[in-house]
């Protein structure tokens, strides 16, 4: 199902917004890689939900306002966005950096949200278990370390990005550094407020995640007040890409249950 893409403005900041499907609202918050393409996972969700996939400020086709300097700024921007769009009872789905963002939003104001799905989220840390350093990895290494099944990596590495795609890659990378370089991939103040996310939550993690270590999954499960955890076998940092069928099935079953 092809997505419909529009520009959505929030207090002067234009955000590229992709959407598909009909039904209750599901809002997907992308990770560090942005939204370079429409994913099969999105199509599966769009069969039952109105799925909204915005590109965060500073990524892809969205504006990069200088006022957004931290994850806290980004979270408050999204609270403005859902208010401006009049969204209610939102199922919030975050991946990696987007999972971190989802948590930053919900500890501040969960009133417009119905549930939370976390796919290998960043945002908290386990002391003594460092994340993978994807800022020091070379381009090939960085792609390979995203996946357990290297055939996914090879398909990506076989295609050379054109100039416009390179520009987007660089823009995304700059923004990711702004939010996640230091402290690396977490907010020291987030973990202690996760109890405020009084929503049913599903945490999904690849057992072979080389970026956000699987040891982090247990901490999320423990800190969120109403969370269940799904570990996905033979899967890296992109469970919704690498194991799309099983992950989409688990996510849809969860969303149905909490509806």
């Amino acid at each position, binding site marked *: 199902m092809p997505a419909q893409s529009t520009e959505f403005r929030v207090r002067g900041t234009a955000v590229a917004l992709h959407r598909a499907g009909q039904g209750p609202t599901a809002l997907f918050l992308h990770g560090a890689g942005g939204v370079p393409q429409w994913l099969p996972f999105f199509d599966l969700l769009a069969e039952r939900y109105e799925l909204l996939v915005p590109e965060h400020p500073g990524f892809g086709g969205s504006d990069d306002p200088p006022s957004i300097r931290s994850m806290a700024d980004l979270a408050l921007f999204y609270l403005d966005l859902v208010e401006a769009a009049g969204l209610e009872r939102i199922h919030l789905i975050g991946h990696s950096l987007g999972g971190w963002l989802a948590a930053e939003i919900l500890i501040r104001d969960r009133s417009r949200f119905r549930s939370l799905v976390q796919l290998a989220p960043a945002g908290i840390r386990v002391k003594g278990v460092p994340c993978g350093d994807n*800022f*020091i*990895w*070379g381009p090939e290494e960085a792609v390979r370390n995203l996946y357990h099944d290297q055939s996914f990596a090879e398909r990506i590495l076989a295609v050379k990005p054109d100039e416009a795609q*390179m*520009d987007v890659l*660089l*823009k995304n*990378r*700059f923004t*990711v*550094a*702004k939010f996640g*370089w*230091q402290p*690396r991939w977490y907010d020291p103040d987030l973990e202690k407020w996760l109890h405020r996310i009084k929503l049913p939550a599903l945490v999904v993690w690849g057992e072979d995640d080389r970026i956000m270590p699987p040891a982090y999954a247990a901490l999320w499960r423990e800190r969120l007040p109403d969370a269940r955890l799904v570990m996905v076998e033979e899967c890296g940092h992109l469970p919704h890409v690498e194991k799309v069928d099983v992950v989409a099935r688990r996510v849809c079953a969860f969303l149905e249950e909490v509806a």
Partner: protein
Amino acid sequence: MQLVSFHLMPYRPLDLAEAAKHRSPWVVLPNRLYDPKKGAEEYACHIDALVYAEELGFDAIGVNEHHQTAYGLMPAPNLIASALIQRTKRVRIAILGRALPLVNNPIYIAEEFAMLDNLSKGRIIAGFVRGIGSEYHSSGVNPYFSHERFHEAHDLIIRAWTEPGPFAFDGDHFGLRYVNLWPRPYQTPHPPVWIPSQGSSETVAWAADPRRKYPFLVTFSSADLVARYHNSYREEARRQGYEAAADQLGWACPIYVAESDERAREEAGRAVETLFNDFLRQSFEMLMPPGYTSISSMKNFVRMRGALGGGRLTAEALIDSGTALIGSPKTVLAGIERMRERTGFGILVALLQFGILSDELTRRNMDLFAAEVMPHLQG
């Protein structure tokens, strides 16, 4: 021409074959490869050579700052500068430079420079840099805010040196209720500020601003690039309404002088190759962390790197491109004069020790440079 004798203080005993097995000699090279007994000797030899440069008639001796690397053993260059002050009388001491964005309170840098300026009775040249990309990996400081932090730290340091304290400084990165420097710098209004750089257009425009007119030192670039950066500084100065003076333009270059071109290449060829291929080896991701330069500067860098091609740089290529001046006194002098004709530069920062170049050859290089090249550049 002002002549500066400059050492990076590489860790020469490094096991290069072992180091080559790691991602880079920066940030991640296991420090079990550092032997403190050998390292202590290295410090002693490098300091002796810099002190000797005063005897030979150099105007200044130079040190710099790098972290967590075998490329240079001076994470705290002011400690070396302090030692050099005690062992020299007349020569200026150039710290090229301190990396301003890497600290959480730049007042400490203002204080240290002010102390050194007092200890040396006004012989300090204060270099300000952002640190190279790898330093953002080793320090954890966010490269996205590197330019902001540099400019803010610079403004704070200059104000701390020149304005009566105490006063409050309201920065976005550095906010201080009390700025009140004890000691104040010895020189008036403050030690000269030099800007060593890899030549980003943002830095050129900022350094050339008539309120600053900071000497701009181009490091480790081919002669064509050095000329391009010098001339872009000149154009920028003209655009801002004045003609840049010779002593606003500097060139930092590995130099080796021997009796003949052949002998010079034979003695220094491998050393200069180790500097560029072994000690400087860093990936794009290390050199250019996101936000360290603008997106357009970063794309230029990618293009230039692509043009250079991969693989090891040979001494021949480094000499041919004018990245290093290696040869007879006549050859080396000609290289310097050619650059002077192209850009009118007036500060030569001579790297007379580089890579694995031994103490003995360093000493001979310095003697011959002082005897055969220096007289033609002075006066």
